[in-house]
């Protein structure tokens, strides 16, 4: 019962015991204890052989004619007792041995006690020893008293062996000494090095499961009973009829009180609480589900999650101020290009002229007139060739400006004049002609007549190949590649998909980039296949520039976006910048510095820091650093072309206001 009590006093063990297996265990325990008790009883009465039923209440046999069984298994019948009260009384009066007659319970027979037996009963009743001969008052004789006598009890002299050392002991000691000498026994056993006690928590990991004790959360406490739980609450806690109805209609989950306060006259009249088990169970559930561990919530400032962009101040050098304005054109300047040495700048304008400028002084050194509004100019990137490709209408002219090293200029002229016609003339889509007369005086060297208007010209890095774009919807001949040294023209694409906007050569590898309105296609010129198709996610690409490393491309679009593609990363833009308010007209990369610029119709040039890392795991870092304003908006057109100085962190921009600006 003690166990049961302690078990039930803890609410958790109620939950425990409610499982059937535990109940079964208790039941078995009780059964086992009972059978043990019976066994002990049997063993005590085993010598009583008159009746074999054992120590059982004899009244079990009171309805039977027998009272048990003898050793042979035969029934022991009860003696016939048909005496009534009167007979009993007469027997008592007449039978002189009545008083010494007793009934044997086991056999039911009457036994007449003998005189010795009666005498024994009498003696026991009187509190005397049963044995008649036992004298309880015999005189006591002390053999060994406290008195010291003169003579000893025994006078035997001490043995000799009590004076000489024991041989057996000597032998034993000798063996031990020998064993110690031989080192078999260590006289001083070295102490046990293992400490008797050890630090239980020495190696404990604070983060392990034990660590939670540090973050101990005590079990939630139950609410203490209030006045409404009293058996005799103040009347304001008792519910009125409406309140009680409302309480009953409420969902038990939303009830404010889980019970109805009731009033009883006295504590004795309080009935058993019907919801006791239910509430205990709910309490157990609460304990089971309550949090046992304190979880540290990480407090993160959302500002910290934004990657830290370096300040533009730390990313210098980049162009910051307008330094020079190249004035001279009377109409919008569509295109500019800079010589590979960085000393000269060429600009082509709608006033049908091409002007050559000295970069450091903004001096126009040369003006060449051509037969139409100039759409594109491109200076040959090879420093050993002095040629400028100029496109107007359906013509591309290769000009020798005669600037820079005189030797290079004459060598270029020689290179062009030394061309020999091949024996078999191929049919080419473009007519090549050598400029003569006045045109030659002005610097015209080769004239290429195209079937359609040429919009863009661009050189290959080696300076021998020249690509021209003739945008025409739905026609095959949109891009042609010329080889100047052999005066040969190739049409690389039998069929162009979409309207080609601009093309570019890869700076290192034999790839060719073709930008249509929505896509940039990258072709491998050696394998003659499409390598990649970049999706710009914009309506209409206007311009494109290839990073000098060759793995990154930026595209400007007429819907104010600049998309940066990482060719290793994806065919979708790595980043899209929407800094301009109006359509982008031109984008450019710097050859050495991590800079790129974009010119837009809103008259601004935005310079961004675009760092490309050699580490393939690190994505390019793009930080806009400067908005350069210098052009006035004319006919809703602002900046038409941007280009970087080849060695200095300077950017040139040409605008619709007929000027070219240098920002340093």
């Amino acid at each position, binding site marked *: 019962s003690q166990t049961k009590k302690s078990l039930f006093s803890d609410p958790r063990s109620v939950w425990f015991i409610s499982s059937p297996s535990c109940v079964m265990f208790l039941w078995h325990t009780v059964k086992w204890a009972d059978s043990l008790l019976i066994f002990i009883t049997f063993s005590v009465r085993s010598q009583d052989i008159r009746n074999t039923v054992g120590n059982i209440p004899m009244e079990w046999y009171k309805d039977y004619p027998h009272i048990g069984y003898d050793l042979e298994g035969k029934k022991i019948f009860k003696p016939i007792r048909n005496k009534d009260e009167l007979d009993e009384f007469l027997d008592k009066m007449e039978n002189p041995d009545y008083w010494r007659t007793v009934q044997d319970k086991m056999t039911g027979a009457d036994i007449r006690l003998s005189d010795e037996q009666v005498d024994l009963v009498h003696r026991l009743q009187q509190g005397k020893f049963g044995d008649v001969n036992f004298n309880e008052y015999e005189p006591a004789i002390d053999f060994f008293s406290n008195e010291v006598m003169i003579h000893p009890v025994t006078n035997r002299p001490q043995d000799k062996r009590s004076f000489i050392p024991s041989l057996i002991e000597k032998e034993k000691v000798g063996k031990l000494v020998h064993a110690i000498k031989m080192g078999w026994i260590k006289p001083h056993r070295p102490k046990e090095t293992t400490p008797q006690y050890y630090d239980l928590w020495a190696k404990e990991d604070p983060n392990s499961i034990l660590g939670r004790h540090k973050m101990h959360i005590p079990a939630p406490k139950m609410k203490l009973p209030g006045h409404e739980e009293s058996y005799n609450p103040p009347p304001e806690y008792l519910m009125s009829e409406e309140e009680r109805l409302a309480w009953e209609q409420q969902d038990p989950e939303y009830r404010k009180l889980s019970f109805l306060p009731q009033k009883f006259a006295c504590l004795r009249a309080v009935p058993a609480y019907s919801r006791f088990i239910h509430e205990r169970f709910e309490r157990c559930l609460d304990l089971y589900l309550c949090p046992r561990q304190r979880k540290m919530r990480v407090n993160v400032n959302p500002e910290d999650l934004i990657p830290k962009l370096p300040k533009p101040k730390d990313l210098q*050098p980049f162009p910051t101020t307008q*330094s020079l304005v190249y004035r001279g054109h009377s109409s919008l300047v569509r295109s500019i290009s800079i010589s590979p*040495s960085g*000393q000269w700048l060429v600009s082509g304008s709608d006033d049908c002229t091409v002007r050559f400028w000295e970069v450091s*002084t903004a*001096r126009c050194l040369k003006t060449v007139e051509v037969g139409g509004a100039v759409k594109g100019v491109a200076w040959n990137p090879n420093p050993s060739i002095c040629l400028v490709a100029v496109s107007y209408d359906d013509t591309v002219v290769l000009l020798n400006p005669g600037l820079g*090293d005189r030797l290079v200029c004459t060598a270029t002229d020689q290179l062009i004049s030394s061309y020999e016609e091949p024996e078999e003339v191929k049919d080419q889509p473009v007519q090549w002609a050598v400029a003569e007369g006045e045109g030659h005086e002005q610097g015209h060297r080769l004239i290429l007549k195209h079937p359609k208007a040429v919009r863009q010209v661009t050189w290959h890095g080696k300076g021998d190949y020249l690509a021209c774009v003739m945008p025409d919807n739905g026609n095959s001949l949109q891009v042609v590649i010329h080889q100047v040294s052999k005066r040969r023209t190739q049409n690389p694409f039998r069929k162009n998909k979409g309207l080609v906007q601009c093309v570019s050569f890869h700076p290192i590898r034999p790839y060719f980039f073709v930008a249509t309105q929505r896509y940039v296609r990258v072709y491998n010129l050696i394998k003659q296949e499409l390598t990649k198709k970049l999706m710009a996610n914009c309506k209409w690409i206007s311009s494109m520039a290839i990073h000098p490393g060759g793995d990154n491309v930026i595209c400007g679009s007429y819907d104010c976006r600049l998309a940066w593609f990482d060719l290793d990363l994806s065919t979708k833009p790595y980043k899209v910048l929407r800094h301009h308010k109006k359509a982008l007209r031109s984008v450019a990369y710097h050859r050495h510095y991590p800079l790129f610029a974009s010119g837009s119709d809103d008259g601004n040039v935005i310079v961004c820091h675009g760092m490309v890392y050699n580490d393939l795991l690190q994505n390019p870092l793009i930080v806009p650093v400067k908005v350069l304003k210098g052009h006035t908006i004319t006919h809703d057109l602002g900046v038409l072309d941007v280009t970087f100085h080849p*060695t200095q962190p300077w950017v040139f921009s040409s605008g619709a206001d007929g000027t070219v600006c240098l920002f340093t």
Partner: protein
Amino acid sequence: MSQVQARFFTENKKYLIDDVPFSIPAASEVTDLSAVINKLLEAKNGHESVQLCVVCVCLQEDVVEIEYVEKFTAPQPEECIMHDDWISSVEADSEWILTGSYDKTARIWSMEGKAVMTVAGHTDVVKDVAWVKRDGLSSLLLSASLDQTIMLWEWNSERNKVKARHCCRGHAGSVDTVAVDPTRTKFCSGSWDKMLKIWSAESNEMMPRKKQKTEQMGLTRTPLMTFSGHNEAVSSVLWMDAEELCSASWDHTIRLWDAETGGQKNAITGSKVFNCISYSPLCRRLASGTTDRHVRLWDPRSKDGSLVLLSLTSHNGWVTAVRWSPSHEHQLVSGSLDNVVKLWDTRSCKAPLYDLAAHEDKVMCVDWTENGLILSGGADNKLYTYRYSACVSDAGA
């Protein structure tokens, strides 16, 4: 009104006054201080009144120490010489002004602004000019051009004839700068092809072996020595002394060279493109004009290189020309793309002494002669000269 204790001092012995503290009103202006000093000077030695200006004020134990110097009079404009085209360079000596122009000629002018001679012979823009020497009536002069040559001319001022003596060929780019060494026997040229070349400046009368076209172009001359080391175009070159060369370049460095061995001695690294440099033997400082509108002063002897001593900031455009005063150790003149020529005193680096805003277009070149003439030429085809007399008197004093 509160009073402060002030003590005046000067380094100019001519205007020395007693070293006694004075009590002056705290709200005194420069003119008030000038009046006080003038009164004191008058009382002392009956000196005529001079304009003085306060240069430096320092506080010591509640006595304000005020240094005063003579106030320079503003440069007086003298002449405006019109050219046919942009003026790329100017160099004047005591008698004649030599200018190089974008019309492919160099011109000689008298101090009064009279055109004396037009030196034509280059096939392209003349970028720099220099006087070599003068023996009596005949002078030697140099002109460097975009056509990659430097021409050595002999000019006879009496007969007013100019003759091409030598045509120095060897550069593979436009020759942007030329400088004659102090012994007047050699000159150095810097070019866009990143090279510095040293040439002999002697005018050999030796007849050519072949009858070349000596009448027109002069004998072809090849360089004595070539210095390579710059990574970009050389924009300006000068001689520090007979053995040491200094060159500024677009690669953001100023390099010092040993003219005898051809080795590089020192390099000063800036952060922007150097357009021009000037060296003053008086204060042993280099002044540089860069593309970031500062005039910077450097110590060419400092071994750690990139130490800027001072930076003079007031221009709004690239500083295209800078020139130290030949007679005053603190003054220099600078010209910029913002059309202004500024006269600086390095002791007051916050603001220039004078702004000479006569040009209507980019200033391309400035010069300062020993007799106190400041010249500036620019893209408005005009060459202005200014008389700056104060510096002569100061030098005399």
